[in-house]
């Protein structure tokens, strides 16, 4: 510590006073920039109102709700089997993953467990929807940073994954395939071998993205140290999924609460990154895609025979009670809290979707950054509007 003399103190105070006077005399009005609801950077209809000083953000506020479809209320007038068709429109890039927590919660209330083969295939499709979802993130990050080419590679290789999902479920985007007590159908013949080929392509895509894009200096300059979320702040805002893991929080529901899945039987790893910046979030998701392809390979080799549907009554009435099941979806923790009064329809359903919490941090995170960084940060937080508004 250097000693501060009175003279230096006085000089400091005088300088501050002079600054303050200049600020009062030359006070300029900030500009309010409205991004959205229609804006290429917001993946849908998120609106960000930012108060700017030049290019610097003083305050930013996200406004959601332009795409609210009222799914929580709609579930109250639909029978349990009908609800999967609704909920797989929440995160439309990884639709199958939305059905699973709802089905698992319903199964928990009914006391049914899906047969082993159904659990394996469920895990398989769950991971495939994660791959389909995160591939698009990897490409889209390029678009947001100004490099258009990775997005085309992403769309090219995601198509192979979607083809495989379509071959099983009949729907590229909205499979509606999960049932209480199992799955709608079994796998088609020869599907497992083809899936392993597709996973080779996905791994090649990951290498491509890493070589062409992530290892570039401009990418590092744009993302390293931008939008740093310390672990404690991430916890306070309830962030989950890759966003939390990129802040160094070692928390993955696939490993920590694998109820209804076969994750404990697979050889895989939860990746975390200590930095918590945009680069870390991109890196963690890239590694996650690679882990998922590994898991899918293992499942393709190890899926057991047997029935794919448990004994379930023809008309499904869920006994009275409450259940909450959360799973590690592509965007983060997604949970369904179901209250049943023993009817054909649920009494109340609360959907905890990951993007809502992940985006809630933006007012804290966007303070003081530059306008281009808003885009980087929003892209790296990775939200789907359907997952915010439901």
């Amino acid at each position, binding site marked *: 510590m250097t000693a501060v003399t009175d003279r230096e103190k006085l000089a400091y105070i005088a300088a501050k006073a002079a600054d303050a006077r200049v600020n009062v005399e030359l006070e300029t009005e900030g*500009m309010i*920039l*409205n991004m959205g609801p229609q*804006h*290429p*950077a917001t993946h849908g209809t998120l609106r960000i109102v930012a108060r700017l000083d030049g*290019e610097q953000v003083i305050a930013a506020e996200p406004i959601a709700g332009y795409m609210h479809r009222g799914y929580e209320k709609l579930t109250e007038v639909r029978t349990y089997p009908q609800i999967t068709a609704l909920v797989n429109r929440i995160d439309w890039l990884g639709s199958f993953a939305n059905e699973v927590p709802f089905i698992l919660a319903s199964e928990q209330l009914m006391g049914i467990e899906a047969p082993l083969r159904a659990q394996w295939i469920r895990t398989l499709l769950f991971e495939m929807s994660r791959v389909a979802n995160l591939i698009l993130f990897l490409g889209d990050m*390029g*678009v*947001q*940073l*100004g*490099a*258009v*080419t990775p997005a*085309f*590679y992403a769309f*090219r290789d995601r198509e192979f994954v979607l083809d495989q999902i379509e071959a099983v479920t009949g729907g590229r985007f909205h499979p509606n395939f999960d049932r209480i007590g199992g799955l709608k159908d079994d796998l088609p013949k020869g599907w497992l071998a083809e899936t392993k080929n597709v996973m080779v392509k996905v791994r090649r895509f990951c290498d491509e993205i890493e070589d*062409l*894009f992530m290892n*570039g200096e*401009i*990418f590092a*300059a*744009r993302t390293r140290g931008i939008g740093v979320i310390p672990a404690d702040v991430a916890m306070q805002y309830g962030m989950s999924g890759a966003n939390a893991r990129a802040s160094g929080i070692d928390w993955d529901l696939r490993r920590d609460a694998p109820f209804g899945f076969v994750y404990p039987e697979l050889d895989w790893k939860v990746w975390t990154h200590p930095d918590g910046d945009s680069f870390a979030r991109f890196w963690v998701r890239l590694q996650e895609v690679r882990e998922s392809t590994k898991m899918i390979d293992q499942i393709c080799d190890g899926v057991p025979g047997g029935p794919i549907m448990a004994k379930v009554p023809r008309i499904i009435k869920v006994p009275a009670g409450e259940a909450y099941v959360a799973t590690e979806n592509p965007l983060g923790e997604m949970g369904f809290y179901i209250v049943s009064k023993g009817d054909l329809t649920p009494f109340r359903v609360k959907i905890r979707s990951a993007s809502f919490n992940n985006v809630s941090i933006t007012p804290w995170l966007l303070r003081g950054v*530059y*306008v*281009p*960084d*808003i*885009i980087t940060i929003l892209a790296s937080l990775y939200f789907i509007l359907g997952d915010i508004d439901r």
Partner: protein
Amino acid sequence: MTQLHPILGLELAYWQETVIRVLLGLVALLLLTGGVVYLYLFKFVSFMQSRLGPMEAGPYGSMQLLAEVGKWLQKEDIFTEDSDKFIFGIAPAVVLASTFLMFVVIPAGPNAVVADLGTGIYFVLAMSSLSVIGILMAGWASANKYALMGALRAGGQLIAYELPLVLAVVGVVISAGSLNLQDIVAAQATGEIFGWSGIGNPYILTQIVGFTIFLIAVQAELTQTPFDMPIAESELVAGYQVEYTGIRFLVYFIAEFATAVAFAAIASTLFLGGWQLPTSWGLGTGTMHVVGPMVISLKAILLVGVVFWVRFSLPRFREDQLQKLAWKVLIPLALANIVVTGVAKVVF
């Protein structure tokens, strides 16, 4: 005042000759621009991105540009309510005029130049910076925050990158001992590399640093990725172009790609030998009247390819990083290049 035309042997008045030169220049400019747009923006990029690009209009989509122009011409010419109508209307013309003026002094053959000015290269660079005014006019008159931010970014960026552009050229000017583009071309064609005159002495060999700085600065002047902050479509939507539609947008489009061609032609004139083939190859002036325009077109098209290759490979910088690159890296490097070139010129 009449003079005998050197190629055609016709007796033409000065104004007749000038009109012919300007018209031929315009045709060459638009043809080259159209060719570049089709070749790179439509096809080359599509193949990079694992898609086919336009395939329906004409064989392999070669008439696509005409279809696009036809579409733009049909669009309504929208003026937003709060815009400054007059300024908003003429801003694209200012940008396009700056592009056209650049072509005035670029030589494409022994006599194929609209005006052979003594200070040719600085005329080009001065005219190219006129476009900033048009862009600032557009951004301010649009009465749109995105447009204003884009225009201000463009202003800061174009002024910052003028300097490395000019300084990179100084090395060539020192080597050639002239500002006239024809003299610079001649100096490269007749030059020797340690007594060997097989390929002349294109300045890319001695001025490789200047060439690299010039290309980077051109990328920024053209506001192409990685320096496309002013039009950054994912954040500022389209910057100063956001309120433009129809024919006025078309004018911006033509200006953008014509400027790319112009800068590529200048770069090939300064660093790659221009229209001239090495004199040791023994081609006469008569032949070069025909071959010269082809030579420089080919070189320019190849250099535009480099611009597009970079554009579709890299992400973009942030505004402050872009300024840092200009002021802390490119300008010192260009100054060092001038010093080294000057010393080398005296020593050798």
